C-alpha cells in the first residue's frame, strides 16, 4: 500500500511537539508559582500530553510515547480528581516534560535505546507510579463509568449480524455493541452501532490481537454477543460481511471475565482497563513505496489556529524552505533587473533608453515591494522567543536559590524567523549570566535595600530598520575593575590601551575570549559557551552588542540587529581592479586624510588614523587581499571608517563607488569560509561581488598585529 515517509511526519511532529512542550511548561510554571492547579489548567495539561502521546505513537517514537503515556495517565487522574493535586507535583511534571523533550531529541536521531530510556525515566516512572497507586484505589476503578454510559442492551439477535471479518492479523473488525471489551490488546477499530438504522448489519468483531478498528452497536436488538464465538479465525477477506449467520460479536478470544460479564450485561466494564499498549507496534507503515506525500496533502492543509476561540482562522503554515526559495527567486529577479538596467544604459538611442529606464524603475519598485512582502512573511513575533525563557529562568533560579521575576516587552515586535535560531542561544546565555553573576542572593538584596526578588527584563523594539533587543537585570552591576584586572593578567589588553578606553569599552571586555570569570564555567553558564561566543553569534547575524552597567543598579546588554539577513545595503569600494561591497550599516564615515592625520607607530608597520582625538588602526585592504592598488598612500585614496562592536578600523581603499541593495548569498554554502569575506552576491553584470565582513577584517587585522608583535619580541 502506501509508503509513509515517517521521517517527514516526525519532523512535523517535532514542530508540533515544541508548541505542546511550551504549553506544558507554561502551565506547569504557573502552577508551580501559584502552588495550585485549576481545573482548566489540568485539562490543558492533559490535552497537550494526550496529543503528544497520540501523535508521538503515530510516528513511532516509542520511548517518548511510553513516558508520555504514563504522564498522561497521571494527568488524567488529576483532571478527574482521582488524585489530589499537591504542590510538589508541578516539579515532577516539569521534569517529565524535560525528559520528554530529551527523549524526543534522542529518538529523532535514533540515539535512544532501552537502557538509556530506563536510566532517564525510571525514577520519574516510579514517582508517577507512586502517585498513581497511592492515591487512586486501583487501576480498574474507572471501569464503572463505561457501564453507566452504555445503554443497557439486551444481548440479542445474532441473526442480524453478519460478522464482518477479521483480516489477517485482524487489525480490524467490528464490535457488536458494547462488547465490553474487545480483547484488550486487540481491536483497533470499532463501531458504536446506532440501532436506528441498519439494524441488520451488525457485526462481529474480531478482536484478537491487533484490531485497530471496530463498531459499537447501540441497537438494543441487534447486537448480541456471545463470548464463546470468538471470531478469531483469520478469515482472509477483509471487510466482507461473513455469510455465516451466527457469528457475532466476539469479545476477546480468551478473556474469561469478559464472558461472564458480557453475557448478562453487555455493557459490562472491561476487566482489563488498559489494552492500549499493543497498538504502538502495529503502527509500522506497511509497504514500501517511497512516495512522499502527495501534492494534495498539505495544499489546503495548514489551517492552524492560534489559541483563539474562533475556529476559522485565516492562516496557513508554510515550510520556511519554501519562503527561502521564494526569497531566492526574488533575489534572482533583483539581479536580472540590475542586468537589464545596466544593459539599458548601453542603448544609444537616448529616447528609447529613457523610456526603458523609466519602466525599469517601475519594475524596480515592484520588486522591492515584492521583497518586502516576502520579508513580512518571514517575520515572527518575539513572543516565540520569549516563551522559552520562563522555564529556563525558573530552573536557574531554583539552582541558584535566587528569586527572579521575568518581564518582557515587545512581544509583538517581529523578527526574521531565520534569526531566531541564532538569537535564542545568546539571549539564553546572557540571561543565565545575569542571573548567575548579576543578581544577588535574596539576603544580600534585602540588605542593600532592594526587593528580594530580582528582575530580568527583556525588551524588543524596531527602529530605523533595526531590531533592538535589550536584556536588563537589576543586580549588582559588573565590577569593571575586576574585569580590567583580569583582562590585563590574561593579556587581552595592555595597560596603555586602557587609558583610552571608556567604561563601556571596559565592560565590553567581558565579551572577549578567555575572560569568563571562574564561576562562569559552572554548569550554569557553562555548556562551553562563553560570552565571547555571544558576541560572535550576534556579529554573525550582522548585529552588534552594547553594554551599560552601573554598580548596584544593574546591567543592560543590548543587541542591535538588522531586520533581515537576506538583503543588505552595500557600498561598492574599489581596491585595484576589484570591487568589494561594504555593508552600509558598518560604515561610520569616510574621508580622504591629510598627511598629518596618519601616524606610524613602532617601526612604522602599524598605521593609525588620528581622527578627532581618536586613534583608529588603518587596514590596507589591498595588502590583505593581495591586490595591486591604484594608490599606495592613504592620502591619495580613501579611508572608510567602519565599526563592529566597539572596534573601529579605517579601511584604505582606492575609491568608493555607488551604493545599492544586494542579495546576500552565503559563501560557506557555495564555496567555503574566507576570513574577512562574509558573503557574496551576484551583481547586475553577472559577476560575483564579495561582501566584506567587517568584524572578520578587524579580527584579521588584530591577528596580524599580534603576529608582528610576537615576531618582534622573538627577534
Amino acid at each position: 500500500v502506501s509508503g509513509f515517509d515517517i521521517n517527514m511526519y516526525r519532523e512535523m511532529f517535532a514542530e508540533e511537539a515544541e508548541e505542546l512542550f511550551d504549553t506544558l511548561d507554561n502551565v506547569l510554571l504557573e502552577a508551580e508559582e501559584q502552588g495550585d492547579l485549576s481545573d482548566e489548567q489540568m485539562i490543558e495539561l492533559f490535552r497537550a500530553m494526550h496529543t503528544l502521546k497520540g501523535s508521538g505513537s503515530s510516528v513511532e517514537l516509542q520511548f517518548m510515547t511510553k513516558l508520555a503515556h504514563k504522564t498522561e495517565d497521571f494527568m488524567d487522574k488529576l483532571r478527574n480528581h482521582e488524585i489530589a493535586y499537591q504542590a510538589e507535583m508541578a516539579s515532577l511534571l516539569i521534569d517529565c516534560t524535560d525528559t520528554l523533550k530529551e527523549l524526543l531529541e534522542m529518538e529523532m536521531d535514533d540515539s535512544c535505546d532501552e537502557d538509556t530510556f530506563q536510566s532517564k525515566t525510571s525514577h520519574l516512572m516510579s514517582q508517577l507510579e507512586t502517585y498513581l497507586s497511592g492515591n487512586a484505589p486501583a487501576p480498574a476503578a474507572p471501569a464503572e463509568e463505561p457501564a453507566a454510559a452504555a445503554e443497557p442492551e439486551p444481548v440479542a439477535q445474532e441473526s442480524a449480524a453478519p460478522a464482518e471479518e477479521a483480516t489477517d492479523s485482524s487489525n480490524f473488525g467490528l464490535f457488536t455493541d458494547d462488547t465490553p471489551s474487545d480483547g484488550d490488546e486487540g481491536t483497533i477499530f470499532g463501531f458504536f452501532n446506532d440501532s436506528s438504522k441498519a439494524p441488520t448489519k451488525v457485526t462481529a468483531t474480531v478482536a484478537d490481537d491487533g484490531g485497530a478498528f471496530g463498531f459499537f452497536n447501540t441497537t438494543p436488538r441487534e447486537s448480541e454477543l456471545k463470548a464463546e464465538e470468538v471470531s478469531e479465525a483469520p478469515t482472509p477477506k477483509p471487510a466482507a460481511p461473513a455469510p455465516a449467520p451466527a457469528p457475532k460479536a466476539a469479545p476477546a478470544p480468551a478473556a474469561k471475565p469478559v464472558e461472564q460479564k458480557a453475557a448478562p450485561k453487555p455493557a459490562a466494564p472491561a476487566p482489563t482497563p488498559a489494552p492500549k499498549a499493543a497498538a504502538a507496534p502495529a503502527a509500522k507503515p506497511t509497504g514500501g513505496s517511497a512516495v512522499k506525500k502527495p501534492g494534495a496533502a498539505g495544499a489546503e492543509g495548514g489551517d492552524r489556529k492560534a489559541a483563539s476561540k474562533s475556529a476559522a482562522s485565516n492562516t496557513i503554515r508554510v515550510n520556511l524552505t519554501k519562503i527561502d526559495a521564494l526569497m531566492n527567486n526574488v533575489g534572482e529577479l533583483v539581479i536580472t533587473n540590475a542586468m537589464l538596467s545596466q544593459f539599458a544604459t548601453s542603448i544609444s538611442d537616448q529616447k528609447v533608453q529613457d523610456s526603458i529606464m523609466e519602466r525599469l524603475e517601475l519594475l524596480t519598485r515592484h520588486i522591492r515591494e515584492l521583497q518586502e512582502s516576502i520579508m513580512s512573511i518571514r517575520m515572527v513575533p518575539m513572543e516565540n522567543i520569549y516563551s522559552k525563557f520562563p522555564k529556563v529562568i525558573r530552573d536557574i533560579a531554583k539552582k541558584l536559590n535566587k528569586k527572579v521575576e521575568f518581564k518582557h516587552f515587545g512581544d509583538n515586535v517581529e523578527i526574521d524567523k531565520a534569526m531566531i535560531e541564532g538569537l535564542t542561544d545568546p539571549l539564553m546565555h546572557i540571561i543565565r549570566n545575569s542571573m548567575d553573576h548579576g543578581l544577588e542572593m535574596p539576603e544580600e538584596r534585602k540588605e542593600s535595600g532592594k526587593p528580594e526578588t530580582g528582575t530580568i527584563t527583556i525588551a524588543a523594539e524596531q527602529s530605523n530598520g533595526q531590531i533592538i533587543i535589550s536584556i536588563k537585570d537589576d543586580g549588582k552591576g559588573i565590577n569593571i575593575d575586576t574585569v580590567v584586572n583580569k583582562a590585563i593578567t590574561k593579556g587581552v589588553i595592555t595597560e596603555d590601551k586602557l587609558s583610552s578606553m571608556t567604561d563601556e569599552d571596559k565592560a565590553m571586555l567581558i565579551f572577549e575570549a578567555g575572560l569568563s570569570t571562574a564561576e562562569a564555567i559552572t554548569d550554569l553558564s557553562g555548556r562551553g559557551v562563553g560570552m565571547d561566543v555571544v558576541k560572535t553569534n550576534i556579529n554573525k547575524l550582522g548585529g552588534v552588542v552594547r553594554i551599560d552597567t552601573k554598580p548596584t543598579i544593574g546591567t543592560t546588554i543590548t543587541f542591535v540587529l538588522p531586520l533581515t539577513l537576506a538583503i543588505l545595503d552595500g557600498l561598492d569600494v574599489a581596491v585595484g581592479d576589484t570591487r568589494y561591497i561594504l555593508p552600509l550599516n558598518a560604515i561610520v564615515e569616510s574621508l580622504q586624510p591629510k598627511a598629518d592625520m596618519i601616524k606610524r607607530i613602532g617601526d612604522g608597520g602599524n598605521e593609525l588614523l588620528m581622527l578627532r582625538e581618536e586613534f583608529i588602526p588603518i587596514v590596507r585592504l589591498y595588502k590583505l587581499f593581495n591586490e595591486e592598488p591604484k594608490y599606495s598612500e592613504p592620502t591619495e585614496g580613501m579611508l572608510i571608517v567602519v565599526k563592529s562592536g566597539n572596534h573601529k578600523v579605517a579601511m584604505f581603499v582606492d575609491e568608493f563607488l555607488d551604493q545599492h541593495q544586494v542579495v546576500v548569498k552565503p559563501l560557506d554554502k557555495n564555496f567555503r569560509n574566507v576570513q574577512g569575506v562574509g558573503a557574496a552576491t551576484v551583481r547586475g553584470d553577472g559577476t560575483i561581488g564579495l561582501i566584506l565582513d567587517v568584524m572578520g577584517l578587524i579580527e584579521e587585522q588584530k591577528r596580524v598585529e599580534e603576529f608582528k608583535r610576537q615576531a618582534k619580541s622573538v627577534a
Partner: protein
Amino acid sequence: VAKILIVDDSNMLRDMLKYALVDGGYSDVTEAVDGVDALEKANASQFDLVITDINMPNMDGFELIQELRKLNNYKNSPLLVLTTERSDEMKGKGKSAGATGWIVKPFLPDQLIQAVSMVLNKK
C-alpha cells in the same frame, strides 16, 4: 468518490490521515482543525464520512458528533472517532455521543482504508 471530512488539531495527523486516504483512493478529503471548524465545514457541504479526533481545543470530537447528529444531513452519516485508547469509557462516550465507530491511532494506512471502506459500504 466519497467526500470525507477529517478533523484533528494536529497538522501532522491530518497530513497522515489525508495521505493514507488519498493513497487509498479517497481523494476528496477536507480538513478541519477542531470541532467548531468542522461543524462550519459540515454545514457548508455534505460529507459522506467524518473522521474526528477526540481531544481538540474549542470543541472536542464527542461534542462535534453530538452536534452533527442534530443536523438532518448527518443523522445517518458514518462518523468515526480517532482515539488512542480502547477503553470502555471511550466507547461509552462515543456511543452515547452517537458515533458510528472508532479507530485507534496509531493506525496502519491499510486498516484505516478498510475501516473507511467498510463504513462507507455499510450505508
